[in-house]
């Protein structure tokens, strides 16, 4: 045992997107926190794409913001291009996506964590998790320094026993030449943590000056200014474009000719890779008939010439990467600055975790982010925030914050992880959320600010801004519902002039706004609806136009919540319930769900099994009652 140098309420290992949120949450809630990182120069590093948000991920960022997290505010600040995706496909799937200045994002986040009260940021290689009687007692660094704490949050990203592979190049390392954490992996195994091995990858970075953009299509940001954070004050932003180009049959031929040299196929890559983030060589093998694949060339930042080649993730040797890129229009004279690579790493099997993100068998051990088998900065940050909050709530003796599948993408994410597990790096998608219509980019604050306030992470400033917006929405909705217009000639003439159909009977403005050709602005022009801010106007329109579908989803939620509210005691012995099928008993024992609702989502657990469980719970309840 090393030398005890300090003790903390909470220790966070890793200062990536999960670690930053976890440590900030704990420290902001007033707890003495240590954030340990391999390198102070790489806090909140974005080792892959230079962007934040995207489909479903934009919603995650909004939720983090509403709960009082940091990612949205920093991403707004580091943003060099903002787009709202999916605008033609309905409000529920609108998602914000920002191109971020990567080095600047790091600088911002470093400043934030370094200046956070109660938070110590240290460059440390943590070698050991210290556990006594299945309870966390601290960590030990390679220096022999021991830091005591009853809470440790693992946010180790891809750094556990990580290995970088491209071509025949193969070395132990994290991204960007950072050290891999080998001993910590062993220590976790010794403590009884089960690890899996996953793989992910990243494309090459190329020199902006070597590209001919005249042969590519320009992709500009939206003219309208938007922010992730519901309280952002940013009103002006210089935007830089991205560029679109395509592979060609020649590109594909070069890749095919060199497949045997790819780290993906020469036996060097061990881990399971994600299907949604395939290497270019995997794409070409799996989709043989596709004549071309698109590539986005994205700036890594304003003060660097490095450009990220999205769509070109590869573990081919460096010379092949250059050769095939040179067959792509606009990249004929490309100069590669860093090659793409595949990375293999250890991560925790998330089925070991409770919904609070605490380990089921090791008290005080939490885990968040890529080390839980996810992928993506936003997924990591969301988990980090929840782990930080729940670490504190554990110290406070409070029940953990568990967001419902109907409340937040973060809820869907964590429920999926701890209920179904994952056999590949898990990426959030809107299609994973069955109540997607309720979980929108535009209403993250309405869904979660109140929760964030209760937890203690919502500042007075945010709370004030939020309550003002909320009451403004209530006021305008009240006005729309209670203002009736009659089918007079004058009104019908107005409606016809707006391309709408005349009224047959009196209607309130809310009903009128449901018409697809109607907008709040037209209601203002025709019927003097009150002047309101654009965000409130958007809410009014969505709430009126989507009312029918929102009701449908809410009914489905209500039905599901009945099972959700039936809690399962932690000490239940599934194998003693002989009426359960063997498969169900095994699955239930592995997951140990909190509620009947969660149990019903485990694959292999049938409705009949849930029926048996329901009875078993009542038996249990009566036995407990008798004891007392």
């Amino acid at each position: 045992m090393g030398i005890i140098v300090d003790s903390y309420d909470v220790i966070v290992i890793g200062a990536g997107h999960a670690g930053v949120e976890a440590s900030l949450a704990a420290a902001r809630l007033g707890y003495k926190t240590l954030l340990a990182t391999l390198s102070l120069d790489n806090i909140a590093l974005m080792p892959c794409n230079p962007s934040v948000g995207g489909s479903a991920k934009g919603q995650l960022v909004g939720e983090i913001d509403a709960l009082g997290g940091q990612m949205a505010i920093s991403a707004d600040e580091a943003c060099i291009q903002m787009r709202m995706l999916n605008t033609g496909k309905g409000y529920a799937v609108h998602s914000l996506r920002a191109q971020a200045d990567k080095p600047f994002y790091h600088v911002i986040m470093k400043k934030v964590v370094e200046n956070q009260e109660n938070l110590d940021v240290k460059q440390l290689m943590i070698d050991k998790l210290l556990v006594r009687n299945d309870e966390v007692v601290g960590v030990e660094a390679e220096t022999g320094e021991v830091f005591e704490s009853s809470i440790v949050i693992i946010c180790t990203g891809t750094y556990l026993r990580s290995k970088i592979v491209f071509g025949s190049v193969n070395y132990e390392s994290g991204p960007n030449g950072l050290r891999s954490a080998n001993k910590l992996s062993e220590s976790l195994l010794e403590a009884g943590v089960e690890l899996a091995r996953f793989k992910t990858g990243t494309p090459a970075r190329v020199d902006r000056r070597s590209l001919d953009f005249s042969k590519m299509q320009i992709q500009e940001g939206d003219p309208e200014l938007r922010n992730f954070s519901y309280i952002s004050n940013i009103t002006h932003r210089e935007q830089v474009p991205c560029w679109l180009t395509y592979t060609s049959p020649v590109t594909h031929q070069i890749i095919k000719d060199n497949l045997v040299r790819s780290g993906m196929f020469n036996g060097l890559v061990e881990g399971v890779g994600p299907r949604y983030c395939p290497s270019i060589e995997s794409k070409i093998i799996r989709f043989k008939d596709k004549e071309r694949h698109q590539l986005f060339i994205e700036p890594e930042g304003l003060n660097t010439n490095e450009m990220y080649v999205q769509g070109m993730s590869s573990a081919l040797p460096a010379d092949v990467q250059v050769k095939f890129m040179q067959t792509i229009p606009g990249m004929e004279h490309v100069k590669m600055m860093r090659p793409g690579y595949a990375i293999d790493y250890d991560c925790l099997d998330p089925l070991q975790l409770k919904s609070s993100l605490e380990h089921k068998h090791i008290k005080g051990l939490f885990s968040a982010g890529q080390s839980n088998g996810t992928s993506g900065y936003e997924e990591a940050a969301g988990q980090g925030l929840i782990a930080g909050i729940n670490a504190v709530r554990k110290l406070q003796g409070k029940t953990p914050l568990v967001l419902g599948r109907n409340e937040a993408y973060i809820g869907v994410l964590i429920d999926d992880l701890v209920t179904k597990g994952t056999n590949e790096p898990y990426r959030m998608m809107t299609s994973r959320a069955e109540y997607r219509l309720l979980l929108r980019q535009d209403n993250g604050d309405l869904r979660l600010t109140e929760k964030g306030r209760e937890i203690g992470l919502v500042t007075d400033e945010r709370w004030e801004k939020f309550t003002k917006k909320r009451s403004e929405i209530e006021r305008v909705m009240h006005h729309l519902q209670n203002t009736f217009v009659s089918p007079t000639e004058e009104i019908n003439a107005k409606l016809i002039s707006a391309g709408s159909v005349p009224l047959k009977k009196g209607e309130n403005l809310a009903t009128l706004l449901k018409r697809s050709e109607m907008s709040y602005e037209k209601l203002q022009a025709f019927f003097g609806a009150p002047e309101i801010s654009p965000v409130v106007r958007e809410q009014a329109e969505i709430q009126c136009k989507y009312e029918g579908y929102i009701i449908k989803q809410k009914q489905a939620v209500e039905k599901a919540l009945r099972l959700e509210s039936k809690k399962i005691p932690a000490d239940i012995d599934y194998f003693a319930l002989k009426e359960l099928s063997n498969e169900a008993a095994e699955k239930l024992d592995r997951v140990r769900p909190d509620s009947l609702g969660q149990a019903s989502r485990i694959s292999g657990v049938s409705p009949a099994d849930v029926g048996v469980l329901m009875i078993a719970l009542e038996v249990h309840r009566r036995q407990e009652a008798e004891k007392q």
Partner: protein
Amino acid sequence: MLQEDTISAVTTAPGNAAIGIVRISGSDALQIADQMFFAASGKKLETYPSHTMVYGFVRDREGRDIDEVLSVYMKAPRSYTAEDVIEIQCHGGMQSIRQILALTYYYGARPAEPGEFTKRAFLNGRIDLVQAESVMDIINSKSAAALKIAVQQQEGFLSKKLKEVRRKLRDVIVHLEAVIDYPEEDIEDVTYNEVNNTISGAAEEVSVLLEGAHTGKILKEGLRTAIIGRPNVGKSSLLNTLLKEDRALVSEYEGTTRDVIEEQLVIGGVPVLLADTAGIHDTKDFVEKLGVERSRAFLDKAELILVVLDGTQPLTADDETILTAIKGKNAVFVVNKTDLAESIITKTLAERFAPENVIEISAKTKEGIDRLESWLQEYVYGSSRQSDEEIYIQNERQINLLRQAADSLKDAVEAAENRLPYDCLTIDVDRALTLMGEITGETVRDEIINEIFARFCVGK
């Protein structure tokens, strides 16, 4: 599964019991019963003290009497399940029991699962542990039995067909979801026409399946047929011929309507429950009483009327009484005695009714019996009986799920026609998929995500 749902089921053993009981349990029980049960007194059920037998009628959605019944309202917690319970006792045999049950579903009850009343009784503190354990056994043995049934042929066909319909719907959803979740990939966008065509197609197929539910019920319960004819037209000899032809005669028992005898027999592969007036009243008497309510009820209970006529004689006044009485019913006109002379009434009947529903036979020589058999087959299976793989759903739970799926598909078609955005469109299609998945045992979400990656080259 959800205890808050209102559930209903027949609680008496199916088959020959003289009285059938439909039980409704849950918070909506009274409201459901109020819409279908009409007390003879004209008062609402809830105005009676709890546990009072109330005499009245169950009426269908068009207000027609289904059966005369006794209803009891047992107010929570003084009932078997400790919830609000309504029991409706009827005596009209399986046909009316099932009609009554179907009405409870229509008004919002959900089919009870095996052992569910007892389960609720336990969960609400009504029964003890030992009983509860036996319920757990029931739940699992029944679901094991249900599993066994599931592999049986008809279910197999249904499942196969549903999977086919689901696959088409799923493909549309997968395409929509891929476009939503990968907005910047070069995936060809979905067209509303394509979506509309697929959903309409699926809606059509589901409605065909629901039509097949009618056939399924007949196959399971028998086609309820009344045989009628004035004296001396050869009704008895036709009956005897049919009975002799039928080697699969199952049983003979006194029908639930005391006026008639019901025979179960199989004609041309169609199971038939043949109700005859013979035995209790003489036929002459019966015809005279056609105007009387009880005799009408006899006709009304039958789905099909087999009218027997004498082809050698012109239509008599009694014949006309019968022909008037059966107006609006499904009927087949059997012109008997073609062995004696050429029929002189076939032409008249063909003009007054559909010619294909007039069949000449000779009960004596059996000539034409095969035509009657084909007619029955056609009636039950429809003209499209091309293979044994026709699908007939027999299970109320499945029918119920499928009806809801059909409703969702209707909404989805409307959404596609109005070009509502994808996020709304997917909600109804998703629901239809989920409901159909409850029949086939498939889950929606993982399936969709797997398919996105299998079909589209997406990802950075």
